[in-house]
């Protein structure tokens, strides 16, 4: 029989909702703050450094630490190294697609997502024995 999960006395469903609400707020603020900072800096290549700021990481790790503990966060940090190299490959691909192939920014950034997924998942599979 279905029941209203929000009314569960132990709050087992309400707690994750609160956690994800908090994640949304923290992530939105962190990403916006780094993006605004990047907007105000010149030259553009320097401002671009903030496109690889650890905004989602900071927001996530703070909550992960309190919810799942430091060992879980440490493993996320290890995988993040691989994700960062995938981001480098992605950004370089976007740069090439824009300069050499003159694609629009939207097309280039969306098409290059294949590179991010290929590098991130491919390297992880090799290093961490993903099953």
């Amino acid at each position, binding site marked *: 029989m279905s029941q209203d999960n929000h009314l569960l006395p132990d709050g087992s469903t309400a707690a994750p909702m609160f956690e994800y609400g908090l994640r949304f707020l923290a992530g939105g603020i962190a990403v916006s703050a780094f993006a605004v900072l990047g907007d105000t800096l010149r030259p553009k290549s320097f401002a671009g450094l903030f496109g690889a700021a650890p905004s989602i990481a900071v927001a996530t790790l703070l*909550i992960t630490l309190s919810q799942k503990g430091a060992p879980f966060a440490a493993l996320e*940090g*290890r995988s993040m190294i691989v994700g960062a190299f995938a981001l480098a490959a*992605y950004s370089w691909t976007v740069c090439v697609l824009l300069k050499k192939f003159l694609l629009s920014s939207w097309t280039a*950034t969306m098409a290059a997502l294949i590179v991010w997924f290929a590098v991130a998942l491919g390297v*992880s599979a090799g290093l961490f024995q993903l099953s």
Partner: protein
Amino acid sequence: MIVQFKPSALRQTRWYEYLVRFVLGGAMTVVAGLIAARFGPVIGGLFLAFPAIFPASATLIEKHVRERKEKAGLPGARRGKEAAALDAAGAALGSFGLAAFGLLIWLMIVQSPVGALVLAAASWLTVAVLAWEVRRWL
């Protein structure tokens, strides 16, 4: 080349463009949390370096530069793409800083959570700026 801080550049950005980045950033943080909860920290950690708002940011840069050039009576399409490409090149260099951030979190967070976060943030900025300086002199 001197790094400049230009707050006046913020006037070019419209309110809904800030909103888009806020929503995308928030949504990606939720998605990263859901992925970590479903598939574990090894897969979840990858998404801490996912280019969540990159498409929106690059599109904004291209649009702003194109509009500025066209307002001045110059052809702006190519300049807009070049500006977005420069931003992407910067992000590629910044990614090395992000890798340093992940490394310090991995090695230190169990021993000292606060210290790890502070040092990781400092190392992100240091490595990213160093990579940019090295690229500039090559």
